[in-house]
């Protein structure tokens, strides 16, 4: 263990690195904003999105972040709801990441709107029947509750509230991810989404993606501080990630097996599992192999017990696989043509009956990565000015409270 542990980055005095990171994030953000203004001026004609593929790359990145945001809070929940000490030490970072990752995801969704200038309309006109509007309410609530939760962790006077608010945050984020999954589950007309399994499946995905994001950020912070992760902690996180990844694989299998059971879903399943080109490749290669089996293999490899790098690689793979999954779910689900007349072949000037093509333009790519940049920037600043470093060995951190 390193001797001079700094509780936040400022104390370490490594300012050059901090500014470097900030510049890096800022540059990406600049790209995102210029893409935004460019698209705002010219319209979505400059993207690869069409009247067939209406949600594209920005939505892939945004939904990944939103789902991961609720999952990353798991670490804090296990700490406060189930009273596990090792997780308690990580609760602050977990809550912080939940807020910053959600901000990133929502930022992209807003920047991609056809009329982002009407954001205020979206905030004030609610159609309560709409699952989308419900999601907005859940997101706002999430910010409020997790914000409070974080306060109870940071301010000793609020300590009595730590547990109840932790519980509320836990339940709230389960509901939030259910609602996010239901965005797709509600699209009954589309073969790719017609399953009630979407909501629970998204919860499991969120566990895996969220934990993976947590592991990556924690690794970066440890590296920064020259701290080595405790072996027992490494082991626990490793097992937890393995459990979530295995559960995600299981749900994916159940979804497709039940779909195969319904004859009317066969065409879609054949498309996705064998004839879908890029979607088939991303499903098997990205979601299942890179994001599922490979991380499991790494985690259970003999060296993993002692090698934090292996867990880090596994977590990065889960994140890559998660993006592949979102691409398959969101873009693949739209690429498969709507079947208005079952039993008939359809054709028209509006691309009925054909698999829709999608090739994202550089503008929407720049827009899409804006979410990661947003998360990155807020997190970098927050961990510099406040105390978020997971501290396993420090018994009494009170001497540094309030040093920001």
């Amino acid at each position: 263990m390193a001797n001079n542990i700094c509780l936040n980055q400022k104390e370490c005095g490594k300012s050059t690195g901090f500014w470097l990171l900030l510049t890096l994030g800022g540059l990406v953000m600049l790209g995102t904003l210029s893409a935004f203004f460019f698209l705002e001026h010219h319209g979505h004609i400059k993207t690869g999105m069409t009247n067939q593929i209406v949600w594209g790359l920005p939505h892939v990145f945004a939904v990944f972040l939103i789902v991961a945001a609720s999952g990353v809070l798991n670490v804090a929940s296990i700490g406060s709801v189930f009273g596990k000490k090792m997780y308690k030490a990580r609760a602050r970072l977990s809550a912080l990441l939940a807020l910053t990752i959600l901000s990133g995801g929502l930022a992209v969704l807003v920047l991609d709107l056809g009329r982002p200038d009407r954001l205020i309309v979206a905030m004030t006109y609610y159609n309560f029947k709409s699952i989308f509007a419900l999601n907005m309410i859940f997101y706002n609530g999430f910010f409020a509750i997790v914000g409070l939760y974080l306060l109870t962790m940071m301010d000793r006077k609020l300590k009595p509230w730590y547990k109840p608010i932790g519980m509320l945050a836990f339940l709230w984020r389960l509901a939030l991810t259910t609602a996010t999954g239901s965005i797709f589950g509600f699209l009954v007309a589309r073969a790719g989404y017609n399953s009630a399994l979407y909501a629970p499946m998204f919860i499991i995905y969120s566990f895996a993606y969220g934990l993976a994001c947590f592991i990556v950020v924690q690794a970066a912070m440890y590296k920064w501080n020259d701290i080595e992760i405790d072996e027992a902690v490494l082991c626990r996180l490793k097992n937890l990630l393995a459990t979530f990844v295995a559960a995600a694989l299981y749900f994916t299998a159940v979804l497709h097996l039940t779909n195969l059971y319904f004859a009317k879903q066969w065409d879609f399943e054949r498309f996705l599992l064998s004839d879908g080109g890029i979607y088939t490749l991303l499903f098997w290669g990205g979601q299942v192999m890179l994001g599922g089996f490979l991380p499991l293999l790494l985690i259970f490899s003999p060296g993993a017990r002692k090698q934090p790098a292996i867990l880090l690689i596994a977590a990065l793979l889960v994140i890559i696989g998660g993006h592949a999954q979102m691409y398959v779910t969101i873009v693949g689900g739209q690429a498969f043509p709507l079947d208005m007349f079952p039993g008939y072949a359809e054709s028209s000037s509006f691309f009925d009956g054909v698999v829709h093509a999608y090739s994202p333009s550089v503008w929407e790519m720049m827009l899409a990565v804006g979410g990661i940049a947003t998360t990155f920037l807020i997190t970098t600043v927050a961990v510099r000015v406040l105390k978020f470093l997971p501290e396993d060995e420090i018994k009494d951190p009170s001497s540094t409270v309030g040093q920001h």
Partner: protein
Amino acid sequence: MSESMNSKLEDRRDFLKASALVAGVAVGPGVLFYGIAHSRSPEEGASSKQRWGMLIDTTKCAVGCNDCVTACNTENGLSGKTGEQDSQWIRKLNIKHLQTGVEHNLPMLCQHCENPPCVDVCPTGASMKRADGIVLVDRHICIGCRYCMMACPYKARSFVHEPLTEQNPEVPRGKGCVESCTFCVQRVDRDETPACVEACTASGHQAMLFGDLNNPESDIAKAMKTVATTEVRADLGLNTGVRYQGI
């Protein structure tokens, strides 16, 4: 089948509605009541005594004829281009039976569903159904999220991908918003028929009939009583205002 699907949907909606209520109360009553105070009534200017509908005879719809599409484009100021990013409010659809090879031709447009999924999912209430059954997008509230396009089972909606010029002042359209067939609401409100129907009649094919489904004396209501009609994707239980015959 469609019943059970409906009730399943209802269940899910109820559950989510209930959660929303809990959410609203927890987050702060202010948000909730603000929302309610601002929800608009879509009933303005139309009467629920009527339900506008359309009956399309596919046996009369001629192969190669595109008159309804052209008329729609002219009336509503659409460019008529058919790229992937261009708006199409009505399109000619050719369907061919996979086993028998029988072909049908028909115009496909917004079906003006009684239970429109586009309206259900729209977060702001921009997608709305008038009392007389016409489904519209309020150009001033639409934020361009495109969720309605994801939800529509008929691909009836288009997103305006680029700035528009030379618009018909009666038909407000604009970049960044979603749009679809309005049954030519500006004409209907003047007691005229939609432009597509007029064009189809003028071409001599007479494949489209427009009228009030609620009025037993109307031609459309009478026709619906005498011929077998089809609701596209009837399994979804949307009770569409547009019906087809001859399929």
